[in-house]
């Protein structure tokens, strides 16, 4: 008992020292705060590595299915189709993966920790920007996996390594921008499941009404008009250009413009919702 009281007093003394012996650090900058949140998101992969399954399993399945089920019928031979499909499937994989950003944010925000973040003296978008940085890392993993699978199956990019890398970088830029749509959905809806449902409902027509799987030449003209302006088509065309070595800078510019527009619209909405979340 005596000893207990003593150790208790010792502990209190130690706590008092820890509280008083402290210099106030300078405020963290926007970049440093965002990167710290990125670090937090990556740590989660360390504890729950299963979450990488969805960025690996899904794209592998899609590539195999489309190549071997439809490839022959669509392009005459599976290997010919793969040259056309692979850049597209890369786009599709990453675009679908962006949905998880909204789902993860929705899961996270319902917990008390976001209250803490929001009451801290940090650049207020940094928890979201940090999460998106970590997600971009996940998209990168997904891209590399699909690329390796493609190379094994017989994809031969004429653009060489630099073409492939530039193509992937372009996809990551677009995905980062697109994610802001899903942060909005993630903040509006109540449950992670509804975020998933709504986002998928949005994404399916957007990815399928594009030039990812087929050349839109045979589509009815009204649909072609839609497909041609679909940002996913523009991105796919540019990525194909990079990987096949036939890049047109105009296409890249369009992708960057589309990305900038997405951020300009959805980042402010996200921030408004985030600040006013109850």
């Amino acid at each position, binding site marked *: 008992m005596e000893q207990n009281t003593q150790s*208790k007093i010792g*502990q*209190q003394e*130690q*706590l*008092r*020292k*820890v*509280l*008083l012996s*402290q210099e*106030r*650090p*300078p*405020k*963290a900058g926007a970049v*440093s*705060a965002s990167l*710290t*949140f990125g*670090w*937090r998101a990556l*740590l*989660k992969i360390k*504890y*729950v590595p299963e979450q990488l399954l969805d960025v690996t399993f899904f794209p592998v399945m899609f590539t195999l299915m489309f190549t071997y089920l439809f490839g022959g019928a669509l392009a005459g031979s599976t290997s010919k189709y793969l040259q056309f499909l692979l850049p597209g499937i890369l786009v599709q994989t990453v675009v679908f993966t962006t949905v998880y950003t909204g789902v993860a944010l929705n899961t996270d925000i319902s*917990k*008390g*920790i976001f*209250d*803490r*973040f*929001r*009451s*801290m*003296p*940090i650049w207020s978008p940094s928890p979201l920007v940090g999460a998106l940085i970590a997600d971009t890392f996940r998209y990168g993993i997904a891209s590399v996996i699909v690329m390796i699978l493609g190379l094994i199956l017989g994809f031969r990019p004429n653009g060489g390594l630099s073409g492939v890398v530039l193509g992937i970088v372009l996809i990551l830029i677009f995905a980062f921008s697109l994610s802001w749509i899903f942060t909005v959905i993630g903040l509006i809806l109540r449950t992670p499941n509804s975020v998933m449902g709504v986002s998928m409902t949005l994404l399916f027509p957007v990815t399928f009404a594009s030039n990812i799987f087929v050349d839109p030449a045979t589509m009815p003209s009204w649909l072609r008009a839609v497909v041609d302006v679909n940002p996913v088509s523009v991105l796919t065309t540019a990525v194909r250009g990079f990987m096949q070595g036939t890049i047109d800078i105009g296409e890249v510019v369009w992708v960057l413009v589309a990305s900038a527009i997405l951020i300009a619209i959805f980042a402010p909405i996200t921030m408004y919702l985030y600040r*006013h979340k*109850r």
Partner: protein
Amino acid sequence: MNSSKPNSNYSELAVEASGLVKIFSRHRAVDGVDLAIPKGTVYGFLGPNGAGKTTTIRMLATLLKPDEGSAKILGHDLIREPGAVRSRVSLTGQFASIDENLSGMENLILIARLMGYTRKQAKTRAAELLSAFGLEEAAKRQVKKYSGGMRRRIDIAASIVVRPDLLFLDEPTTGLDPRSRNQIWDIVRVLVGTGTTVLLTTQYLEEADQLADRIAVIDHGKIIAEGTSGELKASVGSGVLHVRLLDREKRSGAQRLLSERLGTPVHLSNDPAALSARVTQTERVSEALGELAKADIRVTDFSLGQPSLDEVFLTLTGRPAVEKTSKESHA
């Protein structure tokens, strides 16, 4: 630092609020709250679930915008200078405001980095805090594997990585065992001793009684009483007689007798054999007890004491602070 009574520096207020109102779809969750909380004290918000305690705290911590009213936190206007407010306050929410998927160490490093420490300083600071909170051994374990008491401690540790001038603690001991609760109380006392003002909410009257220099009793979004625990008790009456009967069947008889003799209403406790009554004239107590003996109502124990805050709450609101149906019983 004198933390016992606040009269030392009344002029210096940590929180100064007037007419705070928050409406959630026509329900007035907070309905005109005025506050004047002196620096360096513990201020307790006491009230049942849904009284508006958390909503008030969330407004003061810049998480919610008040619909009406204004407040100054440590001299900074809540609405116009939220950034300045955030750099001086810290919030430990009612539900774990830490990342349960990360380890205790990682959580503290995360917060330390966000507060501007370098990576190396953040590690040192995290280790210091873990040791001061008795969590060294659990440093590398994921927080979701922590016990309730450890969780609460790491949560508070995260709030004081940089010692705030004002700390909000939302129900810091709800659901904790008595030992963990005492640890939290000790931490709060040390914190106040180092100059931090603490604003805590609680449903536990004992907690407010133990920790708070001043208490605001809050109900339906309004402060219905405010003062030191002694003042609140005094407002109810000079004392309370508690009686426990051998035979619970005789409680209604005892109630009638006591009420006649004492001249005050007698309250039936949750314990089916116990009753309590406010006492205005202490000399009548022995008479009343004698009357019970004459009527052959045997008493196993009785006590005469200051009213508890439970009784204060009952007197103020006409109902008990913690509903009988509530699972979280008042330890």
